[in-house]
């Protein structure tokens, strides 16, 4: 009977060991033969979320490019700033990098009390994608264009409701910018990220703004119709005009979201360049293109210098918007 007990105990123990993951952070030995060890990539979003799958898809292509494993560590929280503060504390040797989404770097750290200090704490490496934010309406509302919703809001100021993820989110700012440009007023309702679609489908709210992928099938089925795309590019497989191309002056760079890779501040230039080259090749790869078209994304590579400029402009715009809207 003793043996039985052992067997049972080892069953339990085996389960325990299953969960134990090895975690070895590489220690660099000079940047000339970079990378000579596995790289840890922090993803400041939950496992399984959209930015997480993009990061993982890109990282798997970059692995073959760099000839080293890239280990993903999810450190979610604080609108994507918690992971970035972990990154800022890491050695700037290229063996710890992080995925980022623009609001966390340009905007959220100014709005919430987070250990992340903003762009000073990081070295931009490369942008990999742009995030398409779409505006949509229930099909039976009869609203199908930007002009329609502006006319509707003029007729009933403050009555047309828009479902938005949260106050100060990129989508919130985009809608506020549209309100300012068209001199109208919507009834902005904050419903929480991911909750914007259902209440528009069932007619509780008139309009919604969300990331494109989950909206597509409702448009295909005829429940929802596209109004327009905020930002500077239309996502793959989506038939809607850019809001920036309408008669209302909206600066697309102020509201467009983008994602990519950053390193800790003070990372040597040759390491940043090596990583950026790998991102560029990976973004152009067939595997990544397939992923983009299946998820209705926008592949868009930007190198270190342009990305740094983009982040600085975005941070300045965010400061101004926070001031203007009292966020």
């Amino acid at each position, binding site marked *: 009977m003793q043996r039985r007990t052992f067997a049972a105990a080892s069953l339990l123990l085996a389960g*325990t060991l299953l969960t134990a993951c090895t975690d070895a952070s590489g220690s660099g030995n000079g940047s000339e033969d970079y990378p000579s060890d596995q790289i840890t990539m922090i993803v400041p979003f939950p496992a399984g979320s959209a930015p997480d799958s993009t990061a993982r898809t890109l990282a798997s292509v970059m692995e073959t490019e760099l000839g080293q494993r890239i280990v993903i560590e999810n450190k979610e929280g604080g609108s994507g700033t918690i992971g970035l503060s972990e990154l800022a504390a890491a050695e700037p040797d290229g063996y710890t990098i992080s995925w980022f989404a623009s609001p966390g770097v340009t905007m959220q750290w100014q709005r*919430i009390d987070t250990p992340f200090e903003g762009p000073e704490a990081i070295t931009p490496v490369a942008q990999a994608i742009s995030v398409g934010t779409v505006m949509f309406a229930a099909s039976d509302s009869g609203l199908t264009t930007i002009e329609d919703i502006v006319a509707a809001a003029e007729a009933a100021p403050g009555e047309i409701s828009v479902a938005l993820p949260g106050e100060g989110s990129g989508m919130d700012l985009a809608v506020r910018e549209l309100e300012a440009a068209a001199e109208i007023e919507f009834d902005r309702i904050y419903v929480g990220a991911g909750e914007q679609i259902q209440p528009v489908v069932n007619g509780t709210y008139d309009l919604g703004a969300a990331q494109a992928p989950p909206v597509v099938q409702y448009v295909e089925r005829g429940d929802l119709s596209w109004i327009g795309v905020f930002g500077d590019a239309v996502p793959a497989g989506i038939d809607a005009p850019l809001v920036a191309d309408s008669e209302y002056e909206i600066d697309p760079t102020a509201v467009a979201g983008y994602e990519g890779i950053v390193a800790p501040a003070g990372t040597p230039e040759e390491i940043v360049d090596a990583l950026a080259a790998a991102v560029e090749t990976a973004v152009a790869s067939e595997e990544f293109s397939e992923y983009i078209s299946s998820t209705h994304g926008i592949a868009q590579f930007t190198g270190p210098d342009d990305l740094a400029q983009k982040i600085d402009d975005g941070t300045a715009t965010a400061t101004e918007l926070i001031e203007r809207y009292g966020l």
Partner: protein
Amino acid sequence: MDTLSALADGFGALLAPTALIALLAGVVIGSVVGVLPGIGPVGAMALLLPLSFAFDPAVGLLMTIAIYLGSQYGGSTSSILLSVPGEASSVVTTLDGHQMTKRGRAGAALAVSAIGSFVAGTMAVALLMLLSEPLSAFAIRFSAPEYLALCIFAILVLSRLSGGTFTRSMLAVGLGLMLATIGLDDLSGNVRFTFDIGELIQGVEITPVAVGLFGIAEVLLLAENRGHVPQLPKVPFRSLWPTRTEMRRAVPPMFRGGLLGFFFGLVPGPSAAVSTYASYMLERRISKHRDEFGKGAIEGVSGPESANNGAAGGAMVPLIVLGFPFNGVTALLLAGFTIHGIIPGPLFVENSPDLFWSLVAGMYAANITLLILNFPLVGLFTSLLRIPRDVLLGLIVLIAIIGTYAARSALIDVFWLFAMGVLGYVMVKLRLSRVALMLAFVIGPILESSLTQTVAFANGDPTVLLQRPITMTIVVLTALVVLTPVIFRGLKRDRAVDSADAV
């Protein structure tokens, strides 16, 4: 037949080696932990969920489901053999199950409860499969006011059913809601109650809360009363076959119990435990052998044991269709789904049919696997009860720490784990419902967001809840359950255990 081809695809997805391994591992580990006395399904789920984080979403989901179903099977073993219920929903089983053991029919009791669990579990999956699509199509009409009504319904009904006074329940609910508000509020962008501790911005995770309340607290309670290693009756493999008479008497209660359990599962609160009482009373009322009840009537084992598995399946319906947990175990299941990036709700069946069907197929497969496993391994499972307590407690704490840390590799979660362990211990001592706390913690964010939206939507007019057909229905139901505890008065009499922890 659209359903059949979809289901076939679901089974096809199960044939991948990783899926099979995950399913098998989930079932075995779930059963093993379920057998251990003191750790009910909630504790088992909480301890084991982190294991599933290692897999990709579809496979991780399968493992989560397998753990869920597995942990529901094990509780009866110690009830039957030792008269020590593994969890609240096996308390009723001790009445006749342990009497059967005394009469040397332990094997038959174990076999009948495994077969009953399988029958009821399979029935529940079939109903879930048939009901999910039409109910989801209906649930798409739910908006903020409906979710608000649902939250109020869940909290009030839970406090009504989980025993203890209204004040005690509300105290636990309040604690849970307070925990849920810590961190960044996505709607307003405000950071709340973090006291300038950076790690608190991301709020409190469910893993340490659940594992602490139901795992660590249990360890503290077990360590307190130094038990002796029990003398286990031998269960030879040959004695596992019920006689023809026993079988004939045990089968009808399985179907009745399974159906009864399923409908109980649709109600918030400790539905599994309540359904076992209901099934036992039903069987006693209609049985020809009424005098045998309490002396080893096999119907008194097969009915309740089927009912709690029916309830486990029934509780999946509100989770899948509304994305809303009605009890402790489904609250954890929801957390497990979310961690795998799967958001159940009215759009789930439509948006992710592949996932939904592989989940249904996984539930069928898990039930079959459990039935097959339970027979040869019954000896092994019972020998688990022989593990020296010191070793066992150490192991549980070890698994708890590793699992909690592995969930998102944040050390603060380990601190939360022990804080919650101590809180859980204190709550048990004060007879406060831990399930109420956990449920409130999980539905807190839903409650808050639906409340702020409803207030904005109705311009602060609370009668909006009486003006919409669905909310009106929920409000009436709530009133019914809260005002007519008569139905459950019979259950209150024999509350041998603190059913506050019933799930």
